[in-house]
């Protein structure tokens, strides 16, 4: 690494906050999102969706819709049956997980509100929507199961009769010594918590254009998606197409956060219709469709306790987590992964020896729940950090000191947690100490204390956490899903001396293209401006997993580093022949081949390119210049590269109105090698706000009938600029030894920690009232109820 990051080199971009080359385009309206694409002969699809959460579809009368001018075809499942096979969202390594077959359109029964029953293809979306209103569907309503606990009751009707009951997946971890730890504990603290259902609200809704060329039986999908190769496989498989003939092109993606990595019935229908009609079909979800069909997140009820010994050391965690996932385990990643993560991660930073965890995943008649930014982390972190705060209080210690005392010892790494998670190296103490310094913790405590005497209630919430990044094949591959954990990078030196870079990881705004360019430019020795990065087209980029689980920098970055080093060697060996020197005497600086020792300029890359591409006649016959290289990387040292972070939230509660005002937020994170400090900070800030949203505002509120009551942006609250605080971000750097680059991911940590930080700060603020809030979101109403300031019927 030293030869790459030496700051004397002109092209050392690793660790620098360079601007994103693709950002200017987006400020000028030159983005290319799926809905911006208009293909010749393109048709538009709209869906008749179930208004019921659970019902039999007795009949569908499409005649009125089909008769409308501009309507090309109206279809139900029976029309699609020969074009599309159903899917089941299970993975082999989640032992016992089960789910039912899912069809693109309702196959006689609907299992949640919003499930598509019929589809209209028309010349415009407006006409298609007009026609949808003319479809007459006769439903026979069935009792919906909306409450996860009730769904598990022995007499509960199974949502899918063929599965026998409503338990999708169950997992237990038990180190065996938990009961003893609790029976001998000096203190036991416990809590029940509720984690609200919420959703991603990507500003660009899910979008797809499906273009089928019958002459080749080739399908091109323009998709707003995070993982193009995964989609290529899934659409080919379920549409009975040769996977080699399916191409996914992913241009600009207007936010994804985990929403755009799943199989959606409406998107599969659009593709099936394109095959059927042999014309391009566009589907762009509108906002109301997004709320009832984009995967939802969380929906957990947890009960947990923690044991502390007489020395103030945590000896055990014991938890039970129940999550309602809607009627299906989402394909292909399953809806079992989140609970798995809750069990793997709870109490991650601490040195407790005993651990028992029970997780259950339950079917219900609500929208499907699946992986969303932070997957399981916000729940695991909130459970542990709330209990840790309570334990600190009951032992009379400051929460910071209590954490410090209970962290895994710095010299104990690599460390295997009681849940089986392996931590290569964590920096909890260093992060916490830096955090306390950054937020001037002692001053905040003094201010809190002084204001409290004046009747002003402020609270400080601390959080320490671990984050899963750089996944190995253990995440999905071993379970049978064709979701790549490896990723590749191809670099081509062009005759201009510029480099074209193709990478399997994708960009949704995080800055993927930028960091790949930074790494590749550094490794080769050229100016970043001379690298063009291409992502998202399965026809051209190396086969890869795309961007999820914070893998783009760590996995894609390492592949780019290896490719860059290999290309440099190839260039230098050609240069050595041309210059009649030895390759090891040469170097590349700023796009010029130089003598390594004294940096004497010998030849620009453009001259080397000219000779190789156009004047091969001047080269020795046995020289075979290879100016295109591809390298791949799989992280397979550990199941994951864990990062860690510490958060602090400072807030004030108005005890008369129940309003929370966020006063400050600080994060110190350790994602290993920081490739671009600004992008890391911005990932962290955006992540924090995505965690603050569900802690304070965001909730998919369902009626007992399984109806989403607030499925519009006017009713579903997301964080706005005026309510959010400035967020201070700093770093501790512990590079992973699993790669030369040393980078870990940073996409989830903000979202992972923010709900817990708010919860801890809120309960700290309300300490004098002896109340405890653990039911997110923390609305003014809930706060006033807890304080006994309002009574009457509970709205929840």
């Amino acid at each position, binding site marked *: 690494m030293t030869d790459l990051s030496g700051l004397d080199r002109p092209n050392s971009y690793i660790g620098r906050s360079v*601007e*994103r080359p693709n*950002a*200017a*385009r*987006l*400020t*000028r*309206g*030159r*983005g*290319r*999102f799926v*809905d*911006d694409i*208009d293909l010749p002969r393109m048709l538009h699809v709209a869906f008749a969706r179930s208004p019921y959460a659970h019902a039999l579809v007795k009949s569908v009368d499409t005649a009125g819709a089909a008769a409308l001018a501009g309507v090309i075809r109206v279809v139900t499942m029976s029309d699609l049956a020969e074009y599309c096979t159903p899917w089941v969202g299970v993975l082999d390594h989640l032992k016992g997980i089960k789910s039912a077959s899912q069809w693109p359109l309702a196959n006689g029964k609907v299992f949640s509100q919003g499930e598509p029953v019929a589809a209209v293809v028309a010349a415009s979306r*407006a006409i298609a929507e007009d026609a949808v209103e003319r479809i007459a569907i006769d439903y026979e309503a069935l009792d919906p199961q909306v409450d996860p606990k009730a769904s598990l009751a022995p007499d509960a009707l199974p949502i899918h009769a063929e599965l026998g009951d409503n338990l999708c997946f169950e997992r237990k971890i038990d180190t065996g010594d938990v009961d003893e730890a609790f029976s001998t504990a000096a203190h036991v603290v416990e809590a029940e918590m509720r984690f609200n259902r919420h959703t*991603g*609200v*990507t*500003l*660009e*809704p899910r979008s797809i254009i499906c273009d089928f060329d019958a002459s080749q039986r080739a399908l091109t999908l323009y998709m707003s998606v995070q993982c193009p190769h995964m989609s290529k496989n899934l659409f080919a498989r379920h549409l009975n197409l040769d996977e080699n003939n399916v191409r996914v092109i992913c241009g*600009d*993606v*207007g*936010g*994804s*956060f985990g929403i755009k990595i799943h199989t959606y019935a409406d998107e599969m229908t659009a593709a099936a219709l394109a095959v059927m009609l042999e014309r391009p079909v566009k589907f762009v979800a*509108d*906002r109301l469709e997004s709320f009832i069909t984009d995967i939802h997140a969380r929906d957990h009820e947890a009960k947990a306790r923690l044991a502390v010994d007489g020395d103030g050391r945590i000896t055990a965690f014991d938890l039970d987590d129940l999550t309602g996932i809607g009627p299906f385990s989402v394909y292909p990643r399953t809806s079992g992964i989140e609970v798995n993560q809750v069990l793997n991660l709870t109490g991650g930073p601490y040195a407790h020896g005993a651990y028992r965890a029970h997780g259950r995943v339950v079917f219900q008649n609500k929208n499907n729940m699946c992986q969303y930014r932070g997957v399981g982390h916000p729940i695991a972190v909130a459970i542990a950090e709330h209990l840790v705060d309570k334990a600190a209080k009951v032992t009379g210690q400051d929460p910071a000191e209590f954490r410090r005392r209970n962290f895994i010892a710095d010299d104990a790494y690599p460390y295997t947690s009681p849940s089986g998670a392996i931590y290569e190296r964590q920096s909890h103490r260093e992060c916490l100490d830096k955090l306390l310094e950054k937020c001037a913790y002692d001053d905040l405590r003094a201010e809190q204390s002084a204001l409290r005497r004046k009747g002003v209630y402020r609270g400080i919430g601390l959080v320490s956490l671990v984050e899963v990044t750089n996944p190995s094949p253990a995440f999905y591959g071993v379970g049978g899903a064709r979701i790549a954990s490896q990723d590749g990078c191809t670099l081509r030196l062009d005759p201009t001396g510029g480099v074209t870079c193709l990478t399997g990881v994708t960009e*949704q*705004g*995080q*800055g993927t293209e930028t960091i790949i360019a930074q790494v590749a430019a550094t490794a080769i020795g050229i100016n970043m401006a001379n690298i063009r990065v291409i992502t998202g087209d399965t026809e051209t980029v190396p086969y890869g997993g795309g961007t999820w689980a914070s893998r783009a920098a760590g996995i894609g970055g390492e592949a780019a580093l290896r490719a860059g080093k290999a290309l440099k060697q190839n260039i230098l060996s050609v240069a050595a022949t041309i210059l009649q020197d030895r390759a090891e005497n040469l170097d590349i600086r700023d796009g010029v081949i130089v003598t390594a020792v004294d940096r004497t300029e010998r030849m620009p890359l453009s001259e080397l390119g000219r000779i190789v591409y156009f004047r091969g006649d001047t080269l020795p016959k046995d020289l075979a210049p290879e100016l295109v290289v591809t390298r791949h990387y799989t992280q397979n040292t550990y199941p994951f590269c864990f990062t860690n972070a510490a958060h602090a939230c400072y807030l004030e509660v108005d005890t008369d109105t129940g309003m929370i005002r966020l006063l400050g937020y600080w994060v110190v994170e350790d994602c290993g090698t920081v490739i671009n400090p*600004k*992008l890391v900070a*911005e990932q962290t*800030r*955006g*992540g*924090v*706000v*995505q965690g603050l949203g569900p802690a304070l505002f965001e909730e998919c509120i369902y009626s007992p009938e399984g109806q989403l009551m607030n499925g*519009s*942006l*006017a009713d579903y609250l*997301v*964080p*706005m*600029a*005026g*309510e*959010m605080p*400035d*967020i201070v971000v700093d770093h501790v750097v512990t590079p992973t030894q699993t790669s030369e680059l040393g980078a870990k991911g940073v996409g989830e940590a903000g979202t992972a920690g923010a709900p817990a930080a708010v919860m801890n700060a809120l309960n700290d603020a309300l300490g004098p009232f002896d109340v405890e809030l653990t039911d997110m979101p923390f609305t003014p109403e809930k706060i006033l109820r807890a304080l006994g300031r309002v009574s009457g019927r509970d709205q929840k």
Partner: protein
Amino acid sequence: MMKRLVTLSINGEEVSAAVEPRMTLADFIRSEARLTGTHVGCEHGVCGACTVRVDGRTARGCLLFAIQCEGSEIETIENFGDGKGADLQQAFVEHNALQCGFCTPGMLIAADELLRDDPSPTRQAVREYLSGNYCRCTGYQAIVDAVMDVAERRRRK
């Protein structure tokens, strides 16, 4: 549905099309003028992604029908930089005040109006003013930084 001829001036160019009365201004801009920098995020007036200028003031492109705007001067992100907002665009890039970029055109147009109305806003005033434009990626801080930076630079000029 009966179509009507609508003529708008969009970025100084006259655009005429026969459209249904229910076509929104945002859809007219995107599908008739083929200017796709104006984004449609919610179609019910909340998210602000479709913010454009109508006769000099910002408006939600999804809350106006195209026929309501007959004869109006419409300005979109595509000519925003022409001597007016280029500094904001540059500042957004410098501060990384965008990630996915979907909200960005609307955010820029709203920020520009803020700075016309109030050349010396406080950070909180910027936050309040931009609260009609949702961003799900950045957490807003970099956007506020960029707008404050431009306010400062414009004052120094």
